[in-house]
C-alpha cells in the first residue's frame, strides 16, 4: 500500500461513479472458518455519498484505458483525462483491507476495454480469483461482463462472482449504433442469455446436489442510460418489462445521463442530468416489480413519457377513476396496492388488521398510509373525504399538486375540499 495506489484509486473510482448499481443484496453466504466475510441477502450500505447514493461496494474500474469511443462515456478513447490501471494484486489487497475495516460489503469491478474483450475479462476474473482463492474472501463480488468476452471466461466469472452484469446502456439498437459505433445489442444479449442459462442450470443442479457450485447466486442486472438518446419512457419501460419477464434479470438500473462530453453533437443538449425523470422511472420500475403493474398500464396516458409532476401510480390512478374507490375493509391485497399512498407494507398490515375489526381512517394513517393521497381513492368506516369520482380527475390533480401549501391569501378557501 502506498500513495501511488491511492492516486490510482482516485482516478479509477471517479471513472466508475457513473455506473449506478451498487447493491450488495440478493446473495447470502454463510461465514466460513478460516475465511473472511459473509454476504447478507438484504445488502448493507456502509456510507452515503454527497449526492445521497449508497456506498456498499468498492466500485472501481480496473483500468480506464479504453479502445472504444462511445459518445456518452467519460472514458472514451478521445478524451484527454488522467488514465491509470491497477494491478490485480493492488486491487485485491485494497478490497480486503477495506473490507476488514467494515468500509464495504465487497467489490464491484468493471473496466475500460483494453486490447480486446477477452484480455480485459481475463484480468477482471483474475481479481476475483485472487480474492476468493488467495485471500479466502467470502464477501460480495459483482463483476461486469465485457461484451464480446468468451463464454469460458464468463463462466469462470460466474463461479467467483455473486452477481454479473452486462450493460445495455442505450435502450434501442439504432441509437446505440449512432452513439457507440463499435458496439451492438447482440454482444450484450449473447452473454446475458448465456449467464441466464448458467444460473438456471446451476439452480437445477443444486436442487439435486447441495454441493454443486453456485453460479452468480445474486443473479444479473443491467443499466440503461436515460436521456443520452431520444427513447421515450414507454420504450424504456417496455424494454425493462421484457427483461424482467423472461425472467432473466434481477434489476434494471436507470442512470440519468450526466452530460460529460458536451462537445459531441450526437448527444442531446442537456443542462444537467435528468434526475426527476430517473426518479420517476425507478418508481415505475418498483410498480412493475412489487405492485403487479404492467409496463403498458404505467405508460397508457396520452404522452409516451411519465408525468414528472406526479408519481406514476398517482398518475395512473387519475387516468383510471373507474378503479376507485377501493374498499379497504373488503378489497383484496392487489387492489389495495393500486391505491396511491398505500405501499406493500401498509397493504400487508391492513389485510392482517382487518381480520380483527373494521378499519377506519385513523388506523390507516397509523399504519403508514399517506392519507393525503389515499383519502380520495378509498372508502373506510367513519367520516370520509370526497372520492375521485366526485371531485373529478382534473380537479383532484390540481388539488394534490397544490398540496394546500401554496394558496393565494386573497382567495376564498373552501375547507371541504
Amino acid at each position, binding site marked *: 500500500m502506498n500513495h501511488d495506489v491511492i492516486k490510482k*484509486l*482516485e482516478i479509477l473510482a471517479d471513472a466508475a461513479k457513473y455506473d449506478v448499481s451498487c447493491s450488495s443484496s440478493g446473495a447470502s453466504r454463510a461465514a466460513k472458518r478460516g475465511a473472511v466475510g459473509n454476504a447478507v441477502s438484504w445488502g448493507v450500505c456502509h*456510507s452515503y455519498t454527497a449526492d*445521497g447514493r449508497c*456506498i456498499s461496494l468498492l466500485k472501481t474500474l480496473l483500468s480506464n484505458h479504453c479502445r472504444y469511443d462511445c459518445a456518452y462515456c467519460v472514458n472514451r478513447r478521445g478524451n484527454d483525462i488522467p488514465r491509470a490501471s491497477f494491478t490485480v494484486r493492488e486491487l485485491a489487497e485494497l478490497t480486503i483491507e477495506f473490507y476488514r*475495516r*467494515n468500509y464495504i460489503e465487497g467489490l464491484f469491478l468493471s473496466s475500460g476495454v483494453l486490447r480486446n474483450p477477452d484480455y480485459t475479462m481475463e484480468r477482471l476474473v483474475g481479481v476475483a480469483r485472487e480474492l476468493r482463492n488467495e485471500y479466502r474472501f467470502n464477501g460480495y463480488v459483482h463483476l461486469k461482463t465485457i461484451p464480446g468476452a468468451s463464454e469460458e471466461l464468463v463462466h469462470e466469472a460466474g463461479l467467483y462472482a455473486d452477481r454479473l452484469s452486462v450493460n445495455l446502456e442505450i435502450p434501442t439498437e439504432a441509437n446505440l449504433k449512432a452513439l457507440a459505433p463499435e458496439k451492438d445489442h447482440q454482444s450484450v444479449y449473447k452473454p446475458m442469455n448465456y449467464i441466464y442459462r448458467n444460473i438456471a442450470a446451476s439452480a437445477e443442479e443444486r436442487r439435486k446436489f447441495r454441493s454443486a457450485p453456485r453460479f452468480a447466486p445474486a443473479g444479473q442486472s443491467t443499466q440503461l442510460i436515460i436521456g443520452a438518446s431520444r427513447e421515450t419512457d414507454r420504450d424504456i419501460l417496455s424494454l425493462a418489462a421484457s427483461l424482467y419477464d423472461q425472467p432473466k434479470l434481477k434489476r434494471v438500473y436507470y442512470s440519468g445521463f450526466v452530460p460529460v462530453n458536451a462537445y459531441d453533437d450526437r448527444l442531446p443538449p442537456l443542462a444537467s442530468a435528468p434526475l426527476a425523470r430517473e426518479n420517476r422511472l425507478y418508481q415505475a420500475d418498483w410498480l412493475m416489480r412489487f405492485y403487479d403493474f404492467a409496463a403498458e398500464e404505467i405508460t397508457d396516458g396520452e404522452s409516451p413519457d411519465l408525468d414528472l409532476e406526479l408519481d406514476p401510480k398517482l398518475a395512473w390512478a387519475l387516468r383510471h377513476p373507474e378503479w376507485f374507490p377501493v374498499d379497504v375493509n373488503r378489497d383484496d391485497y392487489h387492489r389495495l396496492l393500486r391505491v396511491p399512498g398505500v405501499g406493500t407494507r401498509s397493504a400487508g398490515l391492513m389485510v392482517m388488521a382487518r381480520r*380483527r375489526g373494521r378499519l377506519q381512517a385513523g388506523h390507516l394513517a*397509523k399504519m403508514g398510509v399517506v392519507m393525503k393521497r389515499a383519502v380520495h381513492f378509498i372508502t373506510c368506516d367513519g367520516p370520509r373525504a370526497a372520492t375521485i369520482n366526485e371531485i373529478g380527475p382534473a380537479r383532484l390533480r390540481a388539488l394534490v399538486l397544490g398540496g394546500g401549501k401554496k394558496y393565494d391569501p386573497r382567495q376564498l378557501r373552501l375547507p371541504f375540499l
Partner: protein
Amino acid sequence: MNLFVYDKTFDGLLSVIFEAFRLKLFPDALRGPADDLPLLAGRVVRVETEAEKAGRVWRGLQNRLSRPALRSLMNAWLTVADEAADELIVRYARRIFAGGDEADFSDPDVLAIREQSQKVAREKMHLIQFVRFQKTAEGIFFASVAPRYDVLPLVLRHFTGRFGDQQWIIRDLARGYGFYYDLTRAREVRPDGQADLAAGRLEAGLPAEDEILFQEAWKKYFQAVSIESRANPKLQRQYMPRRFWPLLIEKQ
C-alpha cells in the same frame, strides 16, 4: 392514579406485570427507584423484582406470542431509557393476557410495540453499517460506537461471523462498555476488565503501520465517487444521520 415503582430492569418489569394481575390493579405510570414521585401520586405500589414471578410472566408471554412478536417486545424494551416503553409493555402484556391478538394493528399499543421494535432494528442496522475499524499495531481491529439504544449485544453475531479471523474490539462510548473478540468468542469488557489493557493502549493511539494510508484511501474514494452535479446533502443526511458522522472516518 396508580403508580408502580420498580428497579428499571426487564425482570423488574415482568414482576410489575405479575403484581398488577395479582392486585387487579394496573399502573397508570411507572417510576424507577431514584425518580421523584409526583405530589399527588394516588396509590403507590413498590414492586420487588423476583425471578420466580418474572419467570411465570415470561413463560406466559412465550405461550401466547409468536417468536417475532416476542422479539419485538424485547426490542421495544431497549428503548425504555428514552421513551416510556415500560408503560407500553405493561399495557401490551395486559392485552395479550386478556386474549388480545398480537397482530391486531388497529390497536395503538400493538402498533406501538411494533414501531418501537423497528426503531431498535434500525439502530442495530446502523451499527452494522457504520462501525469503522482501525487496525492497531498489535493487529487488533478497534471501533468506537455511540448508538441511541443499547443494541451492541444484538450485532455480535453479525460481526463474529463476518470477521471471524481477526481480533476486534467494539466499544460503546455512550454506555462505557464493549466487546472483545479473541478469535473464539466475543466477551463483554468493562473499563476495569482485563481486555482494557488493550483498549487503554488503543486510546494512546498506536495505529498499524499502513492504517493511516488505508484511511486516506477510503476518504479519497468517498470523495471520488460522489457526483457533484447531483449533490443532495439532505438525502445524504436522511440515510446517514449526522449523529454518526463524528465516528465515521470518511466524514472527518
